[in-house]
């Protein structure tokens, strides 16, 4: 065993320890630390798991897709607001593992002010459409955002098939109501079933999208399987999940969040950095996975596609 002296002539710990012993000890400490951490946290580490291999590989590309870095698959599938499966962000991923029940087909009713109403199995409903990829920014009203590679089909294409009549001024969407499958519905935190709505021209806008999957795979329960709306210029809660009913109506629908907090959540709920939520500013947002906050863009950066829908409206009043 040799003894080293550093510049200051001081001895270091490893100068007096045989290298083998030293290395063994290091290894022991590492193992012990690993053991301790895995014991303390059974669902070990958030350490980003890779997205599973995509089962849809020939998705049509879209000019509406953002060219920003995608939010990780792990974050998109574990950080969710879906009160039907619990009010905490991590609840839906835990409680929606068996959702939707694969033993029976998913049924969707399209009715109201239209000439061609109907009730469909999801598979039949989707048949006419070529699946398309849409990489959209998603901005939550709580001040965080993601970039998500959805796939699905245009909402307008679906709605046109039902042939809405002249009284169809709005479209109302409902989520499944099934407290057995959706335990969160056993609490009265929101009015069930979850209701959302769009003005007919908003619904017919080419950005409005029906998603059936993300990252090249079918949607998971926590992301609104098997069919959900995506309106990327509006706050996330407008993008209603697990849809079972689409209805054309003459009067403006009243959404679940409008009932829950009429002063805080309006019908339009367009992303708008200049109109603060009564309890927090909307000027900036934290992109999930990033440290610094970034400025929030008007209409979440989709002005070009949607700004014309709101000309002449006071967006402070119609928030």
């Amino acid at each position: 065993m040799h003894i080293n002296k550093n510049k200051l002539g001081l001895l270091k710990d490893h100068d007096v320890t045989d290298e083998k012993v030293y290395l063994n000890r290091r290894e022991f400490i590492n193992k012990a630390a690993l053991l301790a951490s895995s014991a303390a946290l059974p669902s070990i580490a958030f350490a980003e798991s890779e997205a599973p291999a995509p089962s849809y590989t020939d998705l049509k590309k879209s000019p509406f897709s953002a060219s920003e870095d995608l939010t990780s698959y792990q974050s998109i599938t574990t950080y969710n607001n879906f009160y039907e499966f619990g009010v905490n962000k991590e609840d839906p991923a835990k409680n929606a593992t068996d959702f939707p029940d694969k033993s029976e087909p998913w049924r969707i009713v399209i009715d109201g002010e239209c000439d061609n109403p109907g009730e469909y199995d999801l598979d039949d409903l989707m048949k006419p459409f070529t699946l398309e990829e849409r990489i959209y920014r998603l901005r939550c009203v709580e001040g965080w955002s993601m970039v998500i590679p959805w796939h699905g089909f245009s909402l307008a294409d679906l709605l046109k098939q039902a042939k809405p009549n002249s009284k169809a001024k709005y479209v109302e969407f409902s989520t499944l109501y099934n407290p057995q499958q959706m335990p969160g519905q056993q609490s009265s935190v929101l009015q069930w079933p979850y209701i959302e709505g769009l003005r007919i021209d908003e619904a017919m806008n080419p950005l409005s999208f029906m998603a059936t999957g993300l990252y090249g795979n079918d949607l998971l329960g926590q992301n609104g399987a098997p069919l959900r709306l995506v309106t990327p210029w509006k706050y996330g809660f407008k993008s209603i999940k697990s849809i079972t009913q689409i209805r054309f109506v003459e009067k403006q629908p009243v959404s679940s969040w409008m009932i829950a907090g009429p002063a805080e959540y309006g019908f339009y709920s367009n992303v708008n950095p200049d109109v603060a939520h009564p309890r927090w500013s909307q000027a900036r947002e934290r992109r999930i996975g990033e440290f610094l906050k970034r400025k929030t863009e008007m209409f979440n950066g989709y002005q070009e596609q949607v700004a014309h829908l709101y000309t002449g409206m006071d967006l402070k009043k119609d928030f």
Partner: protein
Amino acid sequence: MFRQLFKTSLFIISLLPAIILIYGALNNQLGANPIEVLTRDTGEWALRFLLITLAVSPLRLLFGWHFLADVRRLLGLYSFFYAAIHMLLYVWLDQFFNLTDIIKDIIERPFITVGFINFIALILLAATSNDAMIKRLGAERWNRLHSLVYYIGIGAVIHFFMLVKKDVTEPVIYIIILVVLLGIRLYRYSRRSLISA
């Protein structure tokens, strides 16, 4: 001997939430939005330590656990410690030290107004918590100043209640605990004034 051991153990145990949070943050175990978790959890620990501090007198009164008198200051300072981290996270990671935005936030958003006033009051109490300050202020004035802690408790639960989006279960639980802790004091106070009357 027992008292010293108790105090030291409590000092270490009270530090554990911070250690666990730092460990989780460094090992990427706080989920998709770790900053949100850090801010929320430090705020909640500040509230918990505040309520534990407020429980000391009732526990002495009801069960005669007078040894707790020794650690009340320690518990109160831990509430300040977690509140200070909570505040730092807000000022740093939410607002990036932008003074204009912070002032605007304090003025415009009631729950931040309440949180801010609470933190200023906590600084006052923490700064006057040592023996020298007790001596300098005199027991009576010091006690009057430190009765601010009741208002801080009320402010803290209001702050929490106002900031949650929809599900108020958790803040309501803290409100009930606070009502019980303050209720015991009021009851004793009213009995005492009755007897002396």
